């Protein structure tokens, strides 16, 4: 049951509106209940072929040889696509916003870095024919040592998962192997706190499990274009990713989607479209590439695991005076979006509380597992779990009611947040008060009277003196620099060290030549 508490913050709202605030029926409800809402797979195309990928059976291995001779001769096979057939067989999703280095092939060439990594794509007359051909492919692997634990991966001598990041950590700002957050002097505050509590939290990966699996249908359209029906939850992200990987202008594609059978973050990665379109380009026929459920569960990207250490200092009166956090995002074998989640996570510290001394180091770590991606609450869900369990323990430690403890420490309008922006439009206190009321959880009057709009600002608005450090700086230049590197964001500051000189470009298989610059319809001019 849902109750609208119109009485709260009423003075900040104009409730005198015609359509806003009404429980109007969904525009798509009639389609949903009649089964006529059209998803990507509800398109029947003449002469459609089916694409299935051959996946690595090893978590980490060099590929010695790929023998497709028998598979090529298998009945109903139209085309076997190898990495060398992919025009630009190296990409990272956020290259579209100039963040991170290209680190992931569409089809593995020399090495596989996680179990289930695609190596070949087989386009055949039917799924059965594709499955029969897959069984005839022979791949000779040389297994390599694996690493599955984020902290093991960061140790010296750990197997290198992804050569683009030889320390198994994403590099932030060209310098650090983690994203820092520094606000005040956490160590000093911990030294004088009445209690210090340090705890470890762990979240295992989580699968999006949309009822519709990832997939797409690509077909040659008139005038040299391709129409693509897709389950993507980011249409132009997918258009531009395909344009980059397939090295064609983005207006080669007519992407159609928009009605998707659940996503929850699992349909951002443009998992099927590039190979599906390439299959259509190479065969001249419509091609469908849909994940099976086991593929979706095991090789579709999950919400990545996170390991979090929190060390808090709290005073006897319940004030949290310091919070020190070290967090590791398990990105799996490639970056996808975890690099961004770590930044978002750093900004989220220390949770919705005003704590005068906050210190955070957030790592995006590579391991030999399925690459992780975004999911509902990306970068925040596990941190909220850690922080809120920690808050419960702290309240227990100082003998305070957990609701009152949160109200005491809640951020309020005008407070300075740890990422150095003023807190505005806050409402945590009111949420706690209303939840207490609903749950018949007694809190004392002084806490019932508290307000997000009162008692902030003042000394709480100051940016404290903050020692900084260069811990975690990379000592060696990163092995590969691509032209998609993010611009250093420290133009106005003294950079801690000179950026490393760009090493020569690694050889790329069969990459066509490019112009010096290109205008992307989506993300503006890209540097090359």
């Amino acid at each position, binding site marked *: 049951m849902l109750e609208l508490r119109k009485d709260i913050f009423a003075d900040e709202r104009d409730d005198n509106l015609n359509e806003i605030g009404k429980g109007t029926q969904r525009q798509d409800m009639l389609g949903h209940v009649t089964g006529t809402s059209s998803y990507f797979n509800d398109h029947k195309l003449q002469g459609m072929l089916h694409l*299935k990928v051959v996946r690595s059976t090893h978590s980490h291995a060099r590929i010695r040889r790929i023998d497709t001779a028998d598979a090529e001769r298998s009945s109903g096979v139209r085309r076997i696509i190898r990495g060398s057939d992919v025009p630009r067989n190296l990409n990272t999703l956020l290259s579209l916003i100039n963040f991170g280095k290209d680190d992931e092939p569409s089809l593995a060439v020399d090495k596989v870095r996680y179990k289930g990594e695609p190596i070949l794509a087989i386009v055949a007359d039917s*799924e*059965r024919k594709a499955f*029969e051909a897959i*069984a005839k492919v022979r791949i000779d692997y040389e297994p390599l040592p694996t690493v599955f634990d984020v902290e093991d991966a960061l140790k010296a001598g750990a197997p290198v998962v992804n050569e683009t990041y030889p320390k198994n950590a994403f590099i932030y700002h060209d310098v650090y192997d983690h994203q820092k957050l520094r606000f005040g002097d956490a160590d000093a505050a911990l030294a004088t706190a009445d209690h210090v509590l340090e705890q470890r939290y762990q979240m295992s990966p989580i699968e999006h499990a949309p009822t519709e699996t990832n997939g797409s249908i690509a077909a040659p359209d008139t005038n040299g274009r391709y129409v693509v029906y897709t389950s993507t939850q980011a249409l132009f992200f997918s258009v531009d990713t395909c344009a980059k990987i397939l090295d064609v202008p983005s207006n080669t594609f007519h992407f159609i989607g928009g009605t998707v059978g659940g996503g929850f973050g699992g349909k951002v990665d443009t998992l099927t479209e590039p190979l599906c379109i390439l299959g259509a380009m190479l065969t001249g026929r419509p091609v469908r590439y849909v994940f099976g459920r086991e593929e979706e569960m095991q090789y579709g990207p999950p919400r990545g695991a996170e390991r979090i250490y929190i060390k808090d200092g709290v005073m006897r009166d319940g004030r949290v005076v310091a919070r020190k956090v070290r967090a590791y995002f398990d990105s799996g074998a490639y970056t996808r979006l975890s690099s961004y989640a770590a930044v978002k996570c750093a900004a989220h510290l220390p949770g919705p509380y005003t704590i005068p001394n906050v210190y955070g180091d957030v790592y995006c770590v590579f391991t030999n597992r399925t690459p992780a991606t975004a999911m509902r609450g990306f970068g925040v869900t596990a941190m909220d779990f850690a922080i809120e369990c920690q808050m419960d323990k702290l309240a227990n430690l100082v003998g305070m009611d957990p609701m009152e403890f949160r109200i005491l420490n809640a951020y309020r309008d005008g407070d300075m947040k740890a990422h150095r922006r003023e807190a505005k439009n806050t409402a945590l206190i009111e949420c706690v008060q209303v939840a207490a009321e609903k749950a018949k959880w007694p809190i004392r009057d002084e806490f019932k009277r508290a307000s997000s709009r009162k008692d902030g600002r003042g000394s709480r608005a100051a940016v404290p003196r903050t020692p900084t450090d260069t811990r975690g700086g990379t000592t060696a230049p990163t092995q590969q620099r691509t032209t998609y590197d993010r611009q250093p964001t420290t133009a106005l500051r003294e950079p801690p060290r000179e950026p490393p000189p760009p090493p020569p470009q690694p050889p790329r298989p069969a990459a066509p030549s490019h112009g010096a610059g290109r205008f992307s319809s989506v993300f503006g001019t890209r540097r090359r």
Partner: protein
Amino acid sequence: MTVTVKTFTSSSEAAAALSSDRNARYLGGGTLVMRALNEGDISISTVVRANDHALTRIDPSGPRITLGAGVTFARILGERDLAFLHAPARSIGGPAVRNMGTVGGNLFAPNPYGDFTVALLALDATVALQGGFGSRDIPIEEFLQSRERQAGALVLSVSCTRPTNADAFRYRKIARIKPKGGSVITLAAHLPISGGRIAGARIALGSMAPTQIRARAAERALEGRALDAATVAAAASAAAEGTSPSDNALGSAWYRREIVGVHLRRLLLGQE
């Protein structure tokens, strides 16, 4: 090479087709074979079916009941005379799976499936098999132990003796998800009481070994005793003995060993 479907009117013809073709699988309700085909199992190139009415016959009335291998769980739930099998039948799948899944297919379902078979094992059922060389009856326990080698044979039916009273047979599936979830462990107990004492105790467990197994130590603790708290406690503490559970997505071997006794105790004492 595509899939060939061969449909026969008699089970003996179907059995002959099945035993003569290594790549043939018998299609019952579809929950195993069709799934395998959908997922790209190319080891199946022939699907054998039989329209033999004997396969879907239920003989529910006498002291010994017989269920054709093609009998679905929904049909068992529709038979008032088979009330003792309603709990295990209801624990299979959702309604659609119960309309499709069969008694015979369940005998071949790997962990974490195969819950109905746990009930049949506790009931000392007999499996009637038709092979290339004729038919034979084998005890279900023997069937399960040799299941991998039975792929070429066709199960015709299973039969078992009806429990003497409703209380003598108990069944419980421990699942994480309600009302339809995969088995963490499945328990069935057949405890005939004769003169106030248990005679012929049978405890069967699912997900406690590679196939459904009997908990013989627990049976020994019950045999010849009255079903009182002390006996139940003894059986519960012996429940894990002789089992060899595995880790899987639904629970670890450690966890299964820890809780099997708790659930056996609750089952035998009638506790939630």
